[in-house]
């Protein structure tokens, strides 16, 4: 049971990180559909770095940097050249799939060491919850820290309120004097960093070797999670755990030989995403205030 909960947590962490990063980008008005691509880059970057430097912690750094690099490409085109965000995001995912396939080819068949678990003194000995909550790896703690940080950041800090203002009405934010494009650049790059670390987590903890397209749609599920969470950070934790649970449930089902074909079980996370989106979207269309109003719209500067 304990092992099961630990696997569910591990499965949900890439989703959690990627969705949190995307939430910040979307709060600033940027819809980046390149999450899948940024995660793939993070994964290949982490694998390369760990094979080269033989230390899993460099994998986290390399994953973050790869994600930021991809997000910068996205930012140049959507923010500076004002290209369509949906199409550019798709382009980024297609581009990154090709790039990581090329960069990952020499890494095929090589295995990397896993990210070590860190036990928190005394707390890890607490029965039941100790080994689940306080015997995790660095990225797991980091992802919770990021969620707590951005919850406060968005709600109470001045920068957070400016970020939301830019996402809700970029024209007004601009007339008051806030640098809309700069803020969006930062937000998108933060999103890239989180997606990159989330992608890095996949080879660092879940499957320690490269295969083409190894993120298997997690980036897209992360995008759906942001909607599912109605742009409220802590709800991403709930959503990510549910999806982690569904993913693991179908794996357990396959292992225990449930009388359902394995392919139909493997569909569950994707179908669950559609059902979750449908349930939330019905509510959202009645209460539109949570969706950043400038989301996906290009900002042309002074007009």
């Amino acid at each position, binding site marked *: 049971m304990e092992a099961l909960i630990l696997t569910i947590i591990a499965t949900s962490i890439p989703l959690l990180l990627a969705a949190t990063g995307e939430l910040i980008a979307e709060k600033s008005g940027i819809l980046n559909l390149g999450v899948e691509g940024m995660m793939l880059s993070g994964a290949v970057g982490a694998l390369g770095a760990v094979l080269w430097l033989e230390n899993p912690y460099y994998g986290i750094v390399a994953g973050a940097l790869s994600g930021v690099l991809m997000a910068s490409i996205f930012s140049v085109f959507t923010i500076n050249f004002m290209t369509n965000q949906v199409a550019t995001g798709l*382009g980024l995912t297609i581009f990154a799939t090709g790039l990581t396939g090329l960069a990952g080819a020499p890494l095929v068949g090589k295995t990397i060491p896993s990210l070590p678990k860190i036990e928190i003194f005394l707390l890890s000995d607490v029965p039941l919850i100790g080994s689940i909550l306080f015997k995790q790896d660095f990225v797991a703690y980091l992802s919770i820290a990021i969620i707590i940080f951005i919850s406060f950041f968005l709600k109470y800090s001045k920068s957070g309120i400016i970020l939301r203002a830019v996402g809700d009405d970029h024209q007004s934010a601009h007339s008051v004097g806030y640098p809309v494009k700069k803020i969006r650049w930062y937000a998108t790059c933060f999103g890239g960093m989180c997606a990159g670390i989330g992608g890095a987590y996949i080879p660092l903890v879940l499957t320690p070797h490269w295969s083409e397209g190894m993120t298997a749609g997690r980036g897209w599920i992360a995008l759906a999670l942001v909607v599912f969470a109605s742009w409220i950070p802590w709800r991403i934790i709930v959503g990510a755990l549910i999806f982690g649970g569904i993913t693991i449930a179908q794996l357990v089902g396959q292992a225990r030989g449930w009388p359902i074909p394995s392919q139909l079980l493997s569909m569950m996370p994707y179908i669950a995403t559609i059902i979750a989106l449908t349930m939330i979207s019905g509510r959202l269309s009645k209460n539109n205030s949570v969706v950043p109003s400038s989301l996906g719209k290009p900002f042309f500067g002074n007009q």
Partner: protein
Amino acid sequence: MITFIPRVKVSKNWVIIAPILSIVFTIFFGLLIFTFLGYNPLETLYQIFVSPFSRIDRISDILVKACPLIIIGTGLMLCFKSNVWNIGAEGQFIMGALLAGFIALSFPNIETKFFLLITILAGFVGGALWAFIPAILKTKLNVNEILVSLMLVYVAMLFIDFIVRGPLRDPMSFGFPLSKPYPEGAIINKIPFPGIGFLGQLHYGILFVFLLVPISWIFVNKTLGGFKINVLGSAPQAAKFAGFKQNSITLTVLLLSGGLAGVAGVIEVSANIGQLQPEVSFGYGFTAIIVAFLGRLSPVGILFAGIIIATVKLGADNAQMTMGIPKVVTGLFEGILLFFLLTGETLQKYKIKWSEGK
């Protein structure tokens, strides 16, 4: 700082120059990345862009490969023009092929080629039904069609895998996940040329493209339906005031694009494979997104774009065989190409003005 000033008039030449410039830039940046990763740039350039033209049967294979891309791209054009983002054509392609395959396998002895009309219709229905899910969710409950259509790609891939390994598996396939071969009536033949024989894999399915391009041109440019789609995409407010029903347009374009993707699936399987197998698509549905944009969302443009992208795909196959470059590398070129095409679209509408100071 840089400011963008709207252009009063769009230059006609730019419509053609922009895609060409985009291709030139893409090749330049692509080669830069190849050099950086340690591949010989000139050899890569030759394999990807020149080798597909080196023999006549290879040229006809470009047409074969372009065929599904053009058919799907034309459907996606209708969606993208009206700001509906169907990115699940890959799944609609698979479901179209699957439904048509099911019908074909249900009549194992049929020989008349008129049967193809039925399988192609079945493909259209299969693809359209798969697109109906995001369509109905979008129009009734405002669910994001991007995510739903994409999720359904994964579902479709798993579903065909299940069908081919389970219910429709040929008991005589020696354990391979293959269906029985299609009956003669459901096969699209290769085109025989007198005195030459067959040209590569060139098949009669290509005729559908020659039918589709003019029909879609007339639809987009000469009918009220096409006009509505154009207005909805370029001036949504105007469409609202004119009383165009956004939901019914969204529904229509999604069903049409899903149906066309399904037809592409039938043609691909009936002409090139002849039976169902777990993998039938090889990413055509995603590549067609790039084709639609490279063709500047116009039927004739998409015809050319399909041929260009098919060339690169075949070139990448060659590069994989001769240089060991992974085939997915085409994605690299497609992504960069899309970035530059979109930039070209901005520059078409706006002039850049550089000014000193803030």
